[in-house]
C-alpha cells in the first residue's frame, strides 16, 4: 500500500468528514439560524459595555468613558430597586404558579376529547388570542374592567354590589395581569404539550386498558409521566426568565396608583433608559436581569437532574 492510497483511505474513513459529506445540506439549513443568532443575539452584545460606561451620544459606544460598576451601584442604591426586584420576582412566581400549569391542563383536556372535529375547533379557538396584540388585549381588558363604563362593574352594580377599582388598585393588578396572560397565551402554550402527547405510545394505553385502568388512572400513570420531560424542560426555560415578565402587558396595565406593585425591571429599565435617555443605566439593568436568568437556568437544570429528572444538557 503506497502513501497516496493510505491517505485516501484515511480521508474516506474519517467519520467526521463522512458525516459532513453525508449530511452537508442539513448543515446548510443551519446557516440561517446560526446567522440570525449571530446577528441578533451575539453581535449586539458589544453594547453590554455600556453598562460599565457613561454613554454619551457625542463619544459613541466605544469612545464613552469607563465608569466601572457605577451604574450597578446606582441601581442597587436606588429607592426603587428593591421594590422593583421584588415585584419582578413575585410576578414571575405567580405566573409560574398560575399561568405555567394552565396550558398543560388544557392540553390534557384537549387530548381526552374523542371527537376530532370538535377538538380541532376548540384548539383553533384557544389559539386565536395569541395572535391578538397586547395593545388590543389591554384595550379589551380596560373596556371590561373600567370603573366608569366597564361591563363587569356594571354587572356588579346591577347585582347590588359596589364598583371595584380593577385598573388602578394595587390589590387587583396581579389577578388582572395573570388572568389576561392566561387568556391570551394558555391556548398557544398547549402546542408543545399537544406535540408531546402525540408522541405517547398508544400501546401503553391499550395495555393499561386491558389491565383495567380507567381514564383517570391512564391520565395519571401514562400521559402525565410521558410528558414530564417536556414539562421539565419548559420549566427550566421559564426559570431563566424569572426576571422577565414581558414588557408590553405590564406597561399597558401600569399606572401611577398601581405602580408600587406593577413596576418590574423591564418597565423600569424602559422608563429610565429610553424615556429619560439614560442608556447606560438601562443596560446595567438588562445585564443584571440576564445574569440572574442565567444563574436560574443553571440552578434549575442542576436541581432537576439531582432529583432524577431531565435536564437541558
Amino acid at each position, binding site marked *: 500500500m503506497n502513501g497516496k492510497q493510505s491517505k485516501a483511505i484515511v480521508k474516506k474513513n474519517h467519520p467526521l468528514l463522512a458525516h459532513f459529506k453525508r449530511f452537508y445540506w442539513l448543515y446548510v439549513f443551519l446557516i440561517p439560524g446560526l446567522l440570525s443568532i449571530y446577528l441578533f443575539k451575539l453581535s449586539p452584545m458589544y453594547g453590554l459595555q455600556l453598562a460599565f460606561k457613561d454613554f454619551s451620544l457625542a463619544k459613541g459606544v466605544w469612545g464613552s468613558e469607563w465608569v466601572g460598576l457605577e451604574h450597578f451601584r*446606582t441601581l442597587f442604591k436606588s*429607592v*426603587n430597586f428593591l421594590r422593583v426586584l421584588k415585584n419582578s420576582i413575585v410576578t414571575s412566581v405567580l405566573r409560574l404558579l398560575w399561568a405555567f400549569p394552565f396550558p398543560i391542563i388544557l392540553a390534557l383536556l384537549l387530548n381526552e376529547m374523542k371527537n376530532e372535529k370538535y377538538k380541532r375547533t376548540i384548539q383553533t379557538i384557544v389559539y386565536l388570542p395569541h395572535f391578538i396584540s397586547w395593545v388590543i388585549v389591554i384595550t379589551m381588558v380596560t373596556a371590561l374592567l373600567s370603573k366608569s363604563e366597564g361591563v363587569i362593574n356594571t354587572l356588579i352594580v346591577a347585582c347590588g354590589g359596589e364598583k371595584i377599582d380593577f385598573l388602578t388598585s394595587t390589590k387587583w393588578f396581579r389577578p388582572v395581569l395573570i388572568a389576561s396572560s392566561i387568556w391570551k397565551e394558555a391556548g398557544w402554550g398547549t402546542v408543545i404539550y399537544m406535540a408531546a402527547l402525540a408522541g405517547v405510545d398508544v400501546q401503553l394505553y391499550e395495555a393499561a386498558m386491558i389491565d383495567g385502568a380507567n381514564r383517570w388512572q391512564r391520565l395519571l400513570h401514562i400521559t402525565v409521566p410521558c410528558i414530564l420531560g417536556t414539562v421539565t424542560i419548559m420549566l427550566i426555560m421559564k426559570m431563566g426568565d424569572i426576571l422577565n415578565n414581558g414588557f408590553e402587558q405590564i406597561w399597558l396595565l401600569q*399606572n401611577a396608583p398601581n405602580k408600587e406593585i406593577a413596576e418590574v425591571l423591564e418597565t423600569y429599565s424602559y422608563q429610565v433608559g*429610553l424615556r429619560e*435617555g439614560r442608556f447606560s443605566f438601562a443596560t446595567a439593568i438588562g445585564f443584571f436581569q440576564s445574569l440572574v436568568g442565567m444563574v436560574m437556568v443553571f440552578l434549575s437544570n442542576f436541581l432537576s437532574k439531582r432529583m432524577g429528572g431531565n435536564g437541558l444538557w
Partner: protein
Amino acid sequence: MKRIVALFLATVMIMTALSGCGNTKPAETTGGTQTPVVDQSGESKESDATQDSDEPVKLKIMLHNVSAVPEGSIADQWSTILEEKLNLEIEWILPPASGYEENLQITLLNEDKPDVICFPTNWVYQTSFQDACESGMFYDLSDMLGKYENIMAHTAQMSWDSLDIFKDGRIWGVPRSSPARADGLWLRQDWLNNLGIEYTEGEFLTLDEFYDLMYAFTYNDPDQNGVDDTSGLMLFSEESGLLFPTIARIFHIGDGFPWYEMEDGTLVDLKYSKEYDYYKQYLTFINKCWEAGIVEPDAFAIDYAVALERDDQGRYGIRHGYPGNMPIGPEEGSGKEYVYCPGVVIDGDPIGTYTYGTTSTGVWYYYAISSTCEHPEKVLELFDYVLSDEQWVNLNGKSLINVGFTKDAEGNYDYSMTEQIAEKDKENGTNLATTSLINMFLRRSDGVEFFIDKSLTPEQQKHIADLIQETFDLHWEAKGIGYAPKIVTDPVFIEYKNYMIQEEAKIITGDKPVEYWDELLDGFYKAGYDKYKEDMIAYIESTK
C-alpha cells in the same frame, strides 16, 4: 433534485435572514460625532460638485401629531405647492403620536436621521438632546437665521431664548412659536340648561361652585337619559403618570412646574415649595373630588386619546380647553354645546385670580436640523416661505385656499369645499380632507388671529378673539425658562422624582393623607432638590 431544492431553500432562508441588515445610506459619521457639512453662514458646501441645480433637493422631515398625509389630500396638495415653489422633494416621516418620544430617542442613536426632526417642547431640557447638540448632531442656527425675515418677524423672542439651551447664544432649532396662555374650562351648556343652572360665559367660578357643578354633572343625570353614565370632569393621565393639571391650574401650579416671582420678589416653584401650601391645597381638593366620584374614575388608567373618545360619547360635563378650539353652537345630532369659563378662583387666595404659567412659554414643538442634512439653507427657506404672507392665508385658514376653502374680498371664509371632500371621504373611506399637516407644521406667534376658527361668523370670531385674549392676559409669566440645573441628570434626583409621582397618586386616591406630601418633600430636598432650588434661583437672579 431534492438537494437542489434544499440548497435553493437554504439560500432563500439566508437571504431572508439577512434582509434588512443592509444600510441603504452610506455611513456619514464616525464615533458618534458628526460634523455639519455647511459653514456657519448657512451656505451649503456642495457635496456633489456636479449636482444638477434643477434637481429637487430631497428633505426628510419627521413630524409629531400628524397621523397621515394621504396622496391627493388637501395637506398633500399644500405640500406639493411648497415642493414646487422651492424645488424640494419632501418626505414626511410620521411616527405615531403615542410613543413619539421613544421614537426620538432611537432616532438620535440612529445614523440615518431625517434632515429635520420635530421635538416636543420639553426636549429642550432633555440630556439626550443637549448631548446631541454638543456632539454636533444638529446645526447651531444662530448665524444662519438672520437672513430669513419671515422666521425672525413671526417668532417671539422668548422662543429663541428657550432654544438657546446652553445659554451661550447658540440656537438649536426653529420653534413652532406660540403665545403663552392660561386655558380655562369648557362647560356643557346643554347640561346646564337641563339642570336649570345659570351661567354667563366669561364668569369665573368659585371653588365651591366648581365642585357643586361637577357634582351635579355626575349625579343629577344632566343628559336626562335615566342612566348614571356621566362624570363631572374629564381627567386623564399624562405620560409621566401625573394627572393632567386641569385642577392643579386652579392652584397656580402650572404646566411643567414653572418658577414664578411672587409679589414680595421671592422666586418659587409652587409644587415643591415648603413656604407656600398651594400644592397641598390642590391635593386636598382633588382627593375630595376623587372620593366623591365626581371626576373621571379611570383617570389614572386612561390617556388623552381615550379621554377624548369618552368626551365625544358625551361623558363629561367639564373639560379643560382653549377657547380657540371650542365648538360654537349645538353639535348636530347630539345637541352637545359648550360655554367657556375662563377659570376657577379660590376664596381668600392672596394671588386673587385664576392664573398659571408654563415652562414651555413661547415654544410649542420645535424643529432641529440634523447635521447630516446637506441643505440646511433649504430647510430654513422652507420655514421662511411657510411663514411668509403668501402662505399665511393657508396657515391662518388651516387649510389650502381654493382647495379646502375660499376667501372673499371682505375676508369671509367659506369651507364648503372641505365639507364636500369630507362627505366623499365618508363614502369612500378615504381621508382626503385632512389638513393636520398645515395646522401642525408652523405658526406665527403674533396675536390671536391664528387661533380663530375662520368658519365662524364675524361676530363669533370677535367673541372668541376676546376669550383668547383673556387667556393671554391670565397667563403668569414663568422665570428661568429653558434652564435646567445640572442636578436634573442625577440618577438619585430622577429616581426620587419618579417615586413621588406614584406616591402622589396615593394621596389623590386617599390611600395616604395629604400630610404625607411634607414627608415626600423632605425626601426630595434630600435627593437634590435643595441644590436644584439654589441653582435655579441663582440663574433667575442672574438674568434680571
